[in-house]
């Protein structure tokens, strides 16, 4: 197989795995807050976190530039302190995939946490366990199925991220050209055999992931 195809495949997997780890950590925490706590601005937080699901990825990418670009709200300070900018690195691809995949995790996990019987949580409290222990010993095991399904979906979404990634990580061959971007490049420069190969591969992998997600949300482990 072509050396550049292999690179894109490896980069895509690397980005998707890193983004999924972040998605699972942040998404679980956010889902717990949204499902179990009541505070002002809860619905606004939910909307902000869900927006990337419905916005065009280019718009999400544009926001990321506004925040993280060398002159962005946060990126400006980061650049001043460290002389480093996340833009046009593979980290930017991870960030874009993370933001775009996060709502999928939150939607499924929040629903799973909310479906845990409140009595079970109250029983755990009365038996002397606080929020943290109750979370790890009751809520987490009982919402595991939904969380795993959410993680698998997020992984598939992160693998396929294109628009936002292109905006913040660019299309630098051998550096930031993930598979979807490589497919775009191949197609636009008429390299059909290469594009075909990658498209078929991508379809199979995504199909497999959907199958796994469905199975897990039905049966669990």
């Amino acid at each position, binding site marked *: 197989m072509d050396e550049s195809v292999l690179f894109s495949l490896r980069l895509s997997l690397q980005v998707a795995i890193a983004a999924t780890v972040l998605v699972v950590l942040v998404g679980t925490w956010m889902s717990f807050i949204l499902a179990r706590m009541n505070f002002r601005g809860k619905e606004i937080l939910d909307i902000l976190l869900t927006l990337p699901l419905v916005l065009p990825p280019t718009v999400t990418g544009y926001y990321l530039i506004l925040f993280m670009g060398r002159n962005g709200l946060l990126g400006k300070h980061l650049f001043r302190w460290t002389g480093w900018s996340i833009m046009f690195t593979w980290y930017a691809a991870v960030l874009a995939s993370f933001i775009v995949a996060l709502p999928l995790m939150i939607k499924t996990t929040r629903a799973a946490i909310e479906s845990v019987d409140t009595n079970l949580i*109250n029983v755990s*409290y*009365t*038996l002397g366990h*606080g929020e943290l222990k109750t979370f790890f010993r009751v809520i987490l095991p009982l919402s595991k199925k939904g969380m795993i399904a959410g993680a698998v979906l997020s992984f598939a979404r992160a693998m396929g991220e294109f628009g936002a990634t292109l905006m913040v990580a660019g299309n630098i061959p051998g550096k930031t050209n993930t598979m979807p971007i490589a497919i775009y490049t191949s197609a636009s420069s008429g390299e059909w055999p290469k594009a075909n190969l990658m498209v078929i591969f991508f379809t199979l992998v995504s199909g497999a992931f959907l199958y796994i997600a469905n199975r897990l949300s039905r049966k669990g482990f």
Partner: protein
Amino acid sequence: MIEIHVEKDLGKFFLNISLSLQKGLTVLFGPSGSGKTLTLHTIAGLVEPDSGMIRVNGTVYFDKREGINLPIPRRRVGYVFQEPSLFPHMTVFDNIAYGISGLSSDDRKQRVKQMIEKMRLNRLEGNFPHQISGGQKQRVALARALVTSPLLLLLDEPFASLDHPVREKLRLDLLRIREEDHVPVVFVTHDVEEAFILADEIVVLNDGRVEQIGSKEHIFYRPQTQKVAKFFGVKNIFHGKIVDVRPEEGKMIVCVEGKGFQSSVPYREGAAVGEWIRFCIRPEEIMILREDRPIKKNLKANVFTGKIVRIVEKGAEDTLYFKQGQDDYDFEISLSNLAYRSLRIKEGQIVNVAFKWESIWLIPERKYVLGVDEAIRVQSRST
């Protein structure tokens, strides 16, 4: 000693409870929506009251003025819900062991084993909740709460969803636990039989307020309000006007409203002609007189002649409806099936009925409810 003086406004419902409970088993009794569960929730900390205080054996759980609201895990109450609420992903053993903390794994095992023995759960420890019966589940839930040696056991209609024989067994288990562990229990139910079997003391709630507190004999035979009388199946409750007072004979004559008959009831200090009173007789206290026998002296004051208009056979006992005048019926009479059979009564038959003097209870209708502030004042004066 458990002291609860709380208020909670839920918009449509207002809870205003003031209670002081001694050790033993207290039954919180009341119709659905009377605030029983809400009261348990405030004790456990699942609901925060708007005002007042809760203290259990000297530990302050909640005190609005002092700004104390002990977190649920630190209250050390055992709570058993109507649904067993076992952790579905844990075995019976792990469910019971869940609340034990600060013990070595051997001691822990030992503790759980003892509890399994005690709650008749042998050979079930490896099973998951979906593999055991409803009664077994509720025994696991009880074991799980008891194994942590709680300061107080709160049971919210724990047997309501079980079959009758299973429920009877579990009640006996609970009585045994109470004797062995000396843990104070607050038990919520709306089942009269259950309340009578279990209670050392009964608290009757109605519409978010305490209607009466007392021993089961008191609640059963000396209801302080018409509501309590109704809840505990007194059935024959009459409202009447005093037409004659004879303190020297210790009696007064009451003309019953809407029924048109007169009854002789025990004299109440200070009662005067023209005053309205309420009195009641339990249905099992009314006797049907046999024509072949002379009327006993203590029955003579209240003998009535009328017709049995309806009979409802209920198995162990039977209910007969008796009327004299125009109304649908005057008395509801409950007979044991044995007595009913030996009397050979048919619907439409004319009979004499009577009740003993001591069976008549004059409902005082005094207000039993204290407001929160009032109760706290009373208390601070006594300490």
